[in-house]
């Protein structure tokens, strides 16, 4: 794990084991930094939601909880932008093929909302071509 901090930007790079909850510390640190940089609570909530969904996806669906695999997380926080990239060691997926969770017939499905929530609550989300790495960006509102 590396952490770099100056007055303008906080950065952290960490490799997480593929265990549920392994992201707790880095997520808490990220949220603390957003508060240090004066981000409003609604933005802190949005980043929390998106990062939680993305890392759980990486651990559970990407790495399938394989203890031999890691989830690589890079965070960058400044006064007006937060950038988080999350990469797993799984085969990737095509986010365009995730069914629309707001379609009438899927409204009551128990899962499948993570990607939509990430898209809605962040300014930008971008997957790599393989689909095993996502960049989440939020501009301060």
């Amino acid at each position, binding site marked *: 794990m590396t952490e770099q901090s100056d007055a303008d930007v906080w950065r952290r790079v960490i490799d997480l084991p593929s265990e*549920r909850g392994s992201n707790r510390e880095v997520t808490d640190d990220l949220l603390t930094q957003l508060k240090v940089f004066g981000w409003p609570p609604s933005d802190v*909530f949005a980043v929390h*939601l998106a990062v939680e*969904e993305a890392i759980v996806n990486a651990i559970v669906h990407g790495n399938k909880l394989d203890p031999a695999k890691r989830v690589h997380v890079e965070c960058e926080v400044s006064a007006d932008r937060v950038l988080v990239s999350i990469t797993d060691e799984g085969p990737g997926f095509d986010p365009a093929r995730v069914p629309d969770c707001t379609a009438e017939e899927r409204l009551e499905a*128990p899962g499948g*909302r993570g990607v939509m*929530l990430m898209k*809605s609550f962040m300014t930008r989300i971008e997957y790599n071509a393989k689909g095993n790495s996502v960049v989440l960006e939020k501009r301060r509102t």
Partner: protein
Amino acid sequence: MPTHNRIDATKVGDVTVVTFTDKKILDEAGIQELGAELFSLIERDNRRSIVLNFDNVDFLSSAALGKLITLDRKVKQAQGRLKMCRIKPEILEVFQVTKLNKVFDIRDEQDEAIAAF
């Protein structure tokens, strides 16, 4: 009334009002336990009129949404009714984005939710 870890359930007349122990509903084990406790209200305790009061809840993940959807389905299958109230704006936005506000009966205040049965 049975003891729960993740919820508190009190009776107001015929209505069971549920509040949540955790401010953040996100860890998998906690969500599984929460689901089991919510479902037991229907399946074990035969409650049919339930209000979920989210006053204490600051955050919930999509996995928690799944439990709420399953609970809603179980309540409907049992010919019961489920209502939700005191939901913070950010969480309400989660319900709106996912259009679950069309599935769930959401009220502002607990009194209003209870009166709606």
